[in-house]
């Protein structure tokens, strides 16, 4: 599989390493050159310096031939715009993105993007660990 990752933070770098170890072709974009120091020197990946919301930057990272686009910068709006470019302009098959704000996550999920909302996920886990936490909503469910 060919995978393009936007954002070389902790998560992006992790995904790039895992994907590469699994034998996938990986390209990764970040606007901050220092962020690439998170990647091991021997990583077999295409590294592109630039902003992910620029079509030309995406193109130079090979967006036209990838199967999967993953937007995981720490900026919700950057991820949203970049993901829409990948989906609507380059017709990438799988487009995934991280959005911290649950309300925005919901809006874009309903617009057909695969949105992962860490805030929601962590809240769900915590609430599952604390059985009494959701008492009020359980009661309304009765």
């Amino acid at each position, binding site marked *: 599989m060919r995978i393009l990752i936007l954002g070389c933070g902790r998560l992006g770098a992790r995904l790039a390493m895992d994907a590469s170890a699994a034998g996938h072709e990986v390209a990764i974009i970040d606007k901050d050159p220092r962020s690439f120091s998170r990647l091991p020197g021997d990583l077999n990946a295409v590294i592109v310096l630039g902003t992910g*919301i*620029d*079509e*030309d930057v995406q193109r130079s990272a090979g967006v036209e031939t990838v199967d999967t686009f993953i937007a995981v910068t720490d*900026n*919700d*709006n*950057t991820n*949203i*715009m*970049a993901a*829409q*470019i990948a989906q*609507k*302009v380059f017709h990438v098959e799988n487009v995934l993105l991280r959005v911290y*704000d649950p*309300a*925005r996550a919901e*809006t874009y999920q*309903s*617009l057909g993007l695969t949105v992962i909302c860490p805030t929601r996920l962590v809240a769900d886990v915590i609430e599952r660990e604390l059985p009494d936490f959701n008492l009020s909503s359980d009661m309304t469910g009765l």
Partner: protein
Amino acid sequence: MYIIVAGGGKVGFYLTKTLITEGYEVLLIEKNPAKCDIYMEQFGAAIMQGDSAEASTLQEAGAARADVVIAVTGEDEDNLVICQVAKERFEVKRTIARVNNPKNEQMFRTLGIDATVSNTNVIMNMIEQQIPELPFVHLLALKHEELAIVEVKVSPKSEVVNHEIQHIRFPRDVIITAMLRRGELIIPSGQTVIEPGDELIVVTRRAQEEQLRRLLTIDAT
């Protein structure tokens, strides 16, 4: 008519000021609390502190009753998301986004934004074109995919510098509608002489755009 302006930079500030003077109901939303305090002195209740891309902010701002949402922050991705959230969640009829990178103009249209602009005056015209009795209606033609408004800064080395507009051989179908010279707005005539650094606002066919850019921005030699 109720207009929400998102982003209190220079564009947002002057746009809000102009719209209030024109008698519209306006709310300016700005993220930075310190900036809000300063603007509060001038705009009173017409200013709100918050992140316009958050649904809760737009709800409090009354986006559901807004006729227009104009996103003019310095970040294209923010402007896009503000307009999309306004449209999807609050069914705002008309959304206008400022485009900082001209490459994004086409993109924003593809992604459902009604209009994009790169200049305060042009935003004003777009609002006014909603009011039928004003003679600005021609801007509606912008909806046509062949037409574009472009803003071009004239290079000091361009061959057009120091020539009267009437003597410049522009590509076909190009109209210079306005120009900015050291911050002053000029409505040019045939006798207007182009100076280096002038910013031209030009209505053109998309097909001529590249030729026009080359003429105005590339070294003549």
